[in-house]
């Protein structure tokens, strides 16, 4: 097993190098760099000089130029960026003037908490739902279920999120939930328990909205997986020797149907991560997504680079986890 994990980790190295190359090059050849520079930022005599000075400043900040304003060779720039990335040092944010690592350090735990809870909710609801639909295949329940899950899968988060806030968290309508942010405005004097309840209470709406798509997708997958397994030989054998339908489904079919759900785990987390861009923007949650949106709106290159890098790293880790889980769950996968 250990050998398998090590081999798998070694395979990740070329992917990682390629990924850093893409992230680095993307920024390096962006024409957007030349347009940088806020009003009067560079201290030049006119707009053109300002722009030029701002560009030079930005290039220096990004480590693309040395102190004399001479552009460094490309491989050396990449090497410097890679060295920084390895220790999670991505330079300073253009917009906030703070180290990018600090900004991300604040934002990452928030997004991770949200996504871990969302993943648990998605799997917890989708598995029984898909199972039920597969058992009742071809009946009206299944028809409606298929239609509803497809509708849920198609619901645009940007609309349903806003609608949820308006209907459920707006003071003139039902004010059941807080409208945004992660905790109440005044948390002084809260005990630990009170604070965590408050925190979770603020997460209810965002997580509910972000789960819709993933839930629909997974329950569809679960249904398809269950149905194809129900027609396998082992299920027929079990039925033939007199095992009740309930035990066939729960004992035999269910276990084998879980395998594709493990594979899909590698896709769910990156998907939720991308979805958090919109969710966090709508619900005003200070996580990676909101950081990304503000960075994109203000063309904050170092932050964007770092976010893309960390997002890719997270999805690679999820891929690894999914592979390991699969190897544990399915003895047919050889470790060699």
């Amino acid at each position, binding site marked *: 097993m250990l050998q398998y994990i090590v081999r798998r980790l070694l395979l990740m190295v070329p992917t990682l190098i390629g990924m850093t190359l893409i992230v680095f090059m993307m920024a390096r050849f962006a024409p957007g760099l030349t347009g940088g520079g806020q009003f009067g930022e560079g201290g030049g005599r006119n707009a053109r000089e300002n722009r030029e000075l701002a560009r030079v400043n930005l290039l220096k900040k990004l480590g693309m130029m040395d102190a004399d304003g001479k552009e460094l060779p490309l491989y050396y720039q990449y090497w410097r960026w890679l060295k920084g990335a390895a220790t999670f040092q991505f330079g300073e944010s253009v917009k906030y003037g703070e180290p990018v690592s600090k900004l991300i350090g604040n934002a990452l735990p928030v997004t991770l908490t949200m996504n871990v809870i969302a993943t648990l909710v998605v799997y917890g609801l989708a598995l029984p739902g898909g199972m039920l639909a597969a058992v009742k295949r071809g009946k009206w329940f299944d028809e409606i279920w298929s239609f509803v899950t497809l509708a849920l899968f198609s619901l645009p988060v940007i609309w349903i999120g806003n609608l949820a806030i308006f209907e459920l968290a707006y003071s003139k309508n039902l004010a059941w939930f807080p409208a945004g942010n992660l905790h109440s405005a005044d948390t002084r004097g809260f005990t630990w328990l009170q604070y965590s309840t408050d925190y979770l209470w603020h997460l209810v709406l965002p997580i509910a909205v972000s789960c819709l798509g993933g839930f629909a997708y997974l329950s569809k997958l679960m249904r398809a997986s269950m149905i194809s397994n129900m027609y396998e030989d082992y299920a027929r054998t079990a039925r033939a020797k007199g095992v009740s339908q309930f035990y066939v489904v729960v004992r035999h079919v269910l276990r084998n149907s879980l395998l594709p759900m493990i594979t899909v785990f590698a896709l769910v987390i990156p998907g939720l991560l991308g979805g958090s861009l919109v969710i966090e923007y709508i619900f005003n949650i200070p996580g990676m997504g909101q950081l990304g949106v503000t960075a994109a709106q203000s063309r904050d290159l170092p932050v*964007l680079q770092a976010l893309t890098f960390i997002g890719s790293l997270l999805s690679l880790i999820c891929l690894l986890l999914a592979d390991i889980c699969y190897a544990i769950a399915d003895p047919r996968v050889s470790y060699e």
Partner: protein
Amino acid sequence: MSSAQSEAFTNAPIDPPETPLPALTAKHGRSFWQIVSRSYFRRIKNQIATAYVVLLAVVAVIAPFIANGRPYTAVVDGKRVWPLFRMLSREDRIVLLAGVGFLLYLAVRFFTRKRPPETRTPVRRIALLILVVLGLVASGGIMWSMRHGDNNDLMTREDYKGITPDYDVQGAVFPPLSWGFQDSIYPQSPETQFADPSKEHWLGTDESSRDTLARLLWATRVVFGIGLISELISLAIGIVYGAFMGYFGGTVDILGSRFIELVESIPTLFLIITLVALLGREIYLIMIVLGLTGWTSIARFVRAEFYRLRKMDFVAAAHATGVPLTSILFRHMLPNGLTPILVNATFGIAGAVTIESSLSYLGLGVQPPRASWGSMLNAAGSPGGIFHFWAALAPGIMIFFTIFAYNIIGEGFRDAIDPRLNRLE
């Protein structure tokens, strides 16, 4: 066949039949696509979804003619003018040309399809001739006006409507909805902003007192165009990439797969917002960016199909007769593996529509005054601000319906071509 029947069949005398076999009728066997489309259109949800997307396409092409603040024609100061046609931009004309071309193609396909000889009548040929002539005249007119049309129209909607007294306007013929995507109510006031639905404005107005319905109609162009073009780019890249991977296998396959994994490991939305932030927020750039990030799943599908097909006899036969490689790949193998790819592309369009609306909502996509459902939603209620229910309702529902329709089409199509699923249900 029941057991009694089969028994009767096997026990039947094997003498040659006395009467000759009935002559073959003119009925043709059904082709693969006929079977698929019959099974597809049997479901009512597939019919509705297809009709919706066709309607979307039609509205996208003719939007300038049904929602415009300029009249088709009017007599201004004693001179006949054609303001609507003059105001069409170059893009509008290209879209129109494409629409006319597509209609002509459909007409030719419809009137020249294979039919039994006894039902052929000259009427069809005459109808086709008339249609082709009409189409050519229309495209000629559009082409001519592309060179001679200009946008130097100083008159506003109010001038043509006769609200302002600067011009003498007679006999103006307006489109059914006499508001364009950037015509504000004149004069603007707080009451005209975010107005509720009324007789004049069926879906209310937006933050700049523009008609929501008109903007909704114009935004179909963005949605339809982005879905179509970005998916075409994805298809082109994915098919070529996957075809070479699947056909050659070995090292090409391994290296190609590594690269796909690499691209897929970067979260798509983060990649897209980075690219959009750096490259700019032009609508064509968004199409290209979406196309460049969406090809991996298509490449996977094509690879799997080609991997299966390359062992088949017809490929070996084509190879043996000296057919060039590109011809083997794209004329012999591709049509045999096209169906799963098309299903995937339909889901891809739904994904592209989702991403475009999200980008526009975040202010990174289509920029005002150009209308997009995502940016209309953003205008109706940004985080922390007031949410305007009516201004958000229509674009939200339209985004939902569009994504839903594409997904239904994809699923229906997949069910129709997958005989295993049909057997199970």
